[in-house]
Every structure is written in C-alpha cells, then in structure tokens.
C-alpha cells in the first residue's frame, strides 16, 4: 500500500519535471538571451555564458544531467540570482507555507461556520449568503488585498502594511487568500448539508427527537464534508497561484514571487524546482485528503482495513 503510494508520487514528480522541462524547451528564445537580459551582448559573452551553464551541450544531455542532480537532491543554481536554488527557495518557503496554512485553515473554518449558520434558514438568508459567497469567489485577490490594506493598514493602522513580521502581518494576506476559498467551500458545504438533511437518516434522527441544530452538526455535516475534503485538497494545492498576487500586493517574501520572476526570465532551474515542490505538495495533500476520508466516513475505514 505504502510502496504503491510512494511509487505513484515518484511518477507524478518525474512527469511534472519532464513536462516543465519540455515546455520551457519549446518556449521561444534561448536561455543565453535570458541570462544576458538587458546587459551587454557579444559572441564572446554568449560563448562564455553557454560554457558556464553547460548550455552548449545537447538538450538531452542537459535533461539527463538535470534528472541526475535531482535524484541526488541537488536543484542546481539560479541563472538569474546566481545562488543555489535550494537556498533561494529555502529562504522563502517558510513564509509561503505559513500563508497557505493560515489561509486554508481560515477558509475552511469560515466556510463551516457560514454553512452551519445559513443552512435551513430559508430562501432569504440563503440568497444573501449566496451573493456574498459569489462576490468572494469572483473578486480578484489583487482588489481585495488593496481594499483591505487601504482600510485596515493605511487608514486605521491596525496591521502593518506588509512583510513577514509575525502574526499581525499575516492577518491581511491570509484573509485576502481565504475569502475566495471560503466562498467556494461554503457553497459546496451548504448544498451537501441540505441534501443530507433530506436523507432518510436525517428523518430518523429528527424522529428520535433530536433538535434540528444537532441533526445538522452531528449527522449531516459528516456527509457534507466528503466533497469539501476533496475540494480543500485541490484548493490547497492551488494556493500557490493566489499567493503570487497576495505576495506582490503585500510585499511578502514567498515562492509566488520567485515563481513569477523565474518564469518571466526563464530561470529554468528555479521554475523546475518550484514545479517539483508544488507537485510534491499536491501529492502530500491528496494523500492526506484520502486519509481524512477514512476519518470522516467509517465505511471507507473498514474497506481500507480489509
């Protein structure tokens, strides 16, 4: 079981690495152009750069060398920043993880609370809640971030403008990132809750004299959580995309910034490392989600045990 999981993970990582490598290879322009950038350009400079970065060898040889280094845990050196990739990412990883975990937790908590409060409250409450959720999902993070900054930081001075300076500085970026998550998950969760409340077991529970609140919290929630767990795993994996915007607006260090710079400047080693990292996180989170299914749904537990 475990061996199969690890095997799948390795395949996923290898496919991700290879696909990214091919995509960057197919992109127009050469890496030498990238390294030269705005700087001086001459055949001698080009030759020197190609030699320094092994770019004068065939793509296949470079690919093999890259995979070889990867297996040994060596991510290479950034073309742009002239430092080992592990160092570049390592310095920023913590801040993004912090942001992602805070945003995901906040998003999930918010959605559970919102869904519990609005379920079964009649069409009017649902309509208001639905509109708010839709606004959360569809408002660009850039705009949300700017509005939050203007009100809570520039005007009221409650939180620092930006950066990685303890919990206070984490609040606004995490809220910005959590709102669309909460909007999406609330809708899914409420729909699940309402469907579960129509099921025979809910009728039975009510017949046993349980109050409606208790039916929702103890019985229906468990059922409604299954699709949410699936979705939450997917959302967490996609947080990196949102982090790009949030990190830019709030001037926060993080992988999002690094990823964007690396892609626009074709800093191949960094792009590959970011993709590998996202793939690894995705694998880890979906494994975690699978485990959580078993916790949420006892039927799956027995199936795994058997």
């Amino acid at each position, binding site marked *: 079981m475990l061996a199969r999981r690890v095997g799948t993970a390795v395949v996923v990582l290898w496919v991700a690495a290879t696909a990214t490598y091919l995509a960057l290879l197919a992109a127009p*322009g050469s890496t030498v*152009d990238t390294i030269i*950038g*705005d*700087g001086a350009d*001459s055949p001698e400079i080009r030759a*020197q750069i190609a030699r320094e970065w092994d770019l004068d060898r065939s793509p296949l040889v470079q690919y093999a060398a890259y995979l070889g280094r990867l297996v040994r845990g060596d991510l290479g050196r950034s073309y742009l920043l002239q430092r080992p990739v592990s160092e570049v990412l390592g310095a920023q990883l913590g801040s993004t993880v912090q942001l992602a975990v805070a945003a995901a937790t906040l998003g999930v908590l918010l959605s559970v609370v919102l869904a519990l409060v609005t379920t079964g409250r009649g069409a009017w409450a649902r309509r208001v809640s639905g509109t708010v959720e839709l606004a959360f999902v569809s408002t660009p993070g850039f705009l949300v971030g700017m509005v939050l900054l203007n009100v809570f930081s520039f005007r009221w001075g409650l939180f620092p403008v930006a950066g*990685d300076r303890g919990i206070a500085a984490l609040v606004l970026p995490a809220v910005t990132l959590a709102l669309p998550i909460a909007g999406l998950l609330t809708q899914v969760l409420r729909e699940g809750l309402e469907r579960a409340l129509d099921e025979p077991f809910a009728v039975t529970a009510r017949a046993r004299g349980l109050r409606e609140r208790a039916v929702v919290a103890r019985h229906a929630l468990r059922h409604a959580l299954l699709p949410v767990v699936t979705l939450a795993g997917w959302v967490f994996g996609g947080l990196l995309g949102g982090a790009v915007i949030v990190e830019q*607006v709030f*001037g926060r260090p993080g992988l999002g910034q690094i990823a964007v710079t690396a892609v626009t400047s074709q800093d191949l080693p960094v792009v590959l490392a970011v993709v590998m990292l996202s793939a690894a996180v995705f694998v880890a989170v979906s494994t975690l989600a699978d485990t959580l299914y078993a916790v949420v749904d006892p039927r799956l537990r027995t199936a795994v045990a058997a």
Partner: protein
Amino acid sequence: MSRTRVLLALALLVAGCSSPAPAAPGAGTPVSGGSLTFAVETEPITFNPHLYAQAKARLLVWNSFDALIAHDDKGGYVPWLATGYDVAADGLAYTFHLRTGVTFADGEKFDANAVKANLDQLFVTGYAPSVTAVQLRNFKDAQVVDPQTIVVHLKAPDVLVLDFFASPQGGQISPKSLREAKNLKAGGVDVVGTGPFVLDRYQPGQEVHYHRNPAYNWAPATAKHQGPAYLDEVTYRFLKESSVRVGALTSGQAQVVEGVPATDQDLISANSHLALNRQLNAGTAYSYYLNVTHAPFDDIRVRRAFQDAVDVDTVLKSVYRGTATRAWSVVGPASPFYDKSLEKAYGNDAAAANKLLDEAGWTQRDADGFRTKNGQRLTVRLVQSAPFVRDRRDILAQAVQAAVKQSAGIDLKVSLVDQATANQALQTNQYEVFDNSRLDTDAGTALNLLLASSGAINRGQYKDPHLDQLLVDGQSSTDLAKRTAVYAQVQKLTVVDQAVILPLYAPQDQVAATDSVGGTGFEVAAGVPASAYGLWVAK
C-alpha cells in the same frame, strides 16, 4: 599631467567649504542618530557591485561600497577612494593615487593591491563578461607601483575607463570577501566594502538592513557632508506596488519611498507633511530606434515622416498627466553632452509627414484608413518585452500608435510579449521599431552601444563610418569641450539628418519623504535616488 590632481584637490577644498545641505522643511539641521524605513520598488538580483545591472538598485550599492572617483555634475570627476589621477599624454595609462587610512568593513586595508585584486576578479572567466566586454574593453593590465599607487594600462585611448572607476561595477570589494565569500556573485552579508553603511541582514523578498560604519571618513567631494553617516540604521523594504509604497508612506510605515508614478503624485502633493522630489536620469532619453535594414524605414522619407507624425507633447500629456519631460535628443537633457539646439528643430508636422509619404510612394489608403503601396499596408512593428516595460511605456506606445494612424495613416503594431519572444523578434530582424533608454553616467557609453556599427544594442542597425569615427573621437579625448562638440554632431546626425531616432521622454526618478526626514536627494550625475549617506531624521 599634474593639472588634474590640482583640480581634484581644488574640488575637494571647494566641497569642504560649501554650506551644509539645504534642509527639507521641518527636518531642521542634520542630526546624528536614529533609523528609518525606505520603501523601494526593486529587489536587487545581486548585492555584488561588480555585477550591478539594475538602475533601481543603485541607491543600495553606494551604502556599502565606494569607488575610486565620483562624477561631478559637469561631466568631470572628483576624488573618492583615489585622491587624484594622472593621464599619460598618449591616453594609454591612468595612474591612480589612493587615499591612505581607508579600511574595509571586515578590517582589511584598502590599498593598491586591493584595487588590483578587484580588477583581477573582474577578469575571471564567467564572472562579469558584460563588464569586461564593455566598460573594460580597452583594459590591458594593472600594475601596483606602491601601496598607494596603481597604474592602469589601456590597449587604446578610452576616457570611459574613468566612468568605470566611478561606476558601481568599479566599486571596491574587500579582497577577503573576494577570496572567501560563499556566494560572491550574489553578494550579501559576506561581500563587504568600504562604504558608509554595512549590510547586516537580508531577507529575500522582504527587506535589507544596514547599520552605520562608524569609521567612515572618506566620502566623495561631491557629498554634502563628510565623516560617518547620520543614521544609525536604515531598512529598505521591497514593495513592488506603487500604491502600496505610497500607502506605507502616508500611514507612517515608511518615511521615504522612491518610484511614485504620475497617478499617485497628487496624493503626495495634497499632504502638507510629505514632500516629493523629481530628478531626470542621466544617460539616453527613452527613444524609438527605427530599423533601417528593410522597408519601410530603409527610406529616409518614411523615417522622417514617422518623426513628423507624432505630436510628442500631446502624447506625453495624455499618458503622464504633465509629469513627463519631453526629449528632443537621444541624449537625455540632464547630460552635460545634451545638444540643446535640437529642440524644436524637427517633428510635429503632420502636413510634412503626409507629403513625405506621398513622395515615397505610399499614396493609396486601405479600408481601415492606413496608407498602402503596391497593395502593402504601411505597417511598422514595435515588440516590447513585458518584464522590462516600466513607466507605462506600453500605454505610451498605444498613444503613439493612435497618433501616427490619425495624422499620417501609419500602422504601428505594438505587441507586449515575454522576454524570449521579444528576443526572438530581435534576432530574426522581425521588427521596425526598437524602444530603449539607458542610464549611463557618461552618455558616451550608451551611444557606443546604441549607435556604433558594432554596438551590442544597435537595433536601428544604422551603420555609418563617419558616425563610428565620431564615437571613437568622443571616447578617446579627455577634453570635455571637444567631447561635447563631437557628441553634438552625433546627435544632429542621428536624430535630425538621418532621422533614425524618435526621442520621446527623459526618464526620471521620484523620491517622496515625510517632513521629519532631511537630506533626501539624488546621486550627482546619475540622477537616481541617492544612498542613505546624506539622510537624517529630526529628533
């Protein structure tokens, strides 16, 4: 030969006698102590001065590094780590006399051997190819005469070597750092210099922190004070979004910011506790270079028509709300080599543009109103690389596009693409317009790259032996008057006579600060925000 040294000594004396810097309203006279936060737009890709490549990172370089000489505002040089220099009569040797008692922040002594070690490092294969290929292309060798004297020999007369020794790339790194730094090319805490501050903390993506170097006593003669810096500490926060920088300033979370675009300048002006300063950059103006290798710009009439078709003032006003300074020449108006006689000497003449295009055979019009010749539309392509677009140059391009369409029926196709695609268009000659501005303290450096036949970024591809000779003349003379006359010819030839360049605006920098901060300003000659050396905070 010793005349230069006398002049330098005189400059030092004059600078020493000059009155203290005019204080910003509210900040009073300079006081020592305190700290401040400076919000900047750009996080440097390296802290190693040898590899400096971003104009926006220049203010950080001079916090922790010094050069041998510094620019004055008239195209000359004043002493810094060198007390003076002699130029051999044939222009092939420059002797630098070094200041005594200078130490690097790690305790190493600054002397001729240190200068030699820096030059040697620059020539290490793969270390700084763009420095050795451009700024030091005529460098032959360096010879340590005694601890305070070093002679630099050149392969050909090249006055631009002085510009190198005043540039960030000529900044002096401790020989110990050169030997032992873990990541020399990236720079950082373990790559130290002799500057007024010491970099002691760098958090990528967030900020860099400096503390004062108490031993500092060797500021250039152009500095507004001598001795150690006023501030105990300074933190530079990297905030990419201009509105976030301005918000940080208005809410007191930063005391100084740089990079305030036209759209945000009203916010600063409206607040009586904030002050905004603007300064034109050195180097070349932001200009369009017209590709003369193929139709339609192989025809000088079409090039001139393109120049005439744009009402530059109106276009700039619509895009920059009156905050931009129009450029008339490829050389920026802040440069001592700027040729003022080009002003109003050409351009903004739609009637002339249409007449020229008729003469050139572009007489028909197609359904969209564009001119055609033999069924071909009069189309020219401008390819902009998105990562390098700043100052809303993409919007400016759209305004120019509308202007040339309306006034002369020219189809300017603008595409905003990734860097690699833009490079490909350049490599395969699939463009007619190339846009560029360069920040070079000596405009000659930029002109060599942009206009010489062999220039690395001669994207207009106009090649002319007479022009090449003028550029060589401008580079080989140390006589400022002669250089000015030569570069005036270069400007007239390329902008007016051959119409291969359409200058648009002079790039500028902005610094805004709260009224408790004094000493904000710009680097002499470069025109970019100055280092923190002159800053103080009122008690």
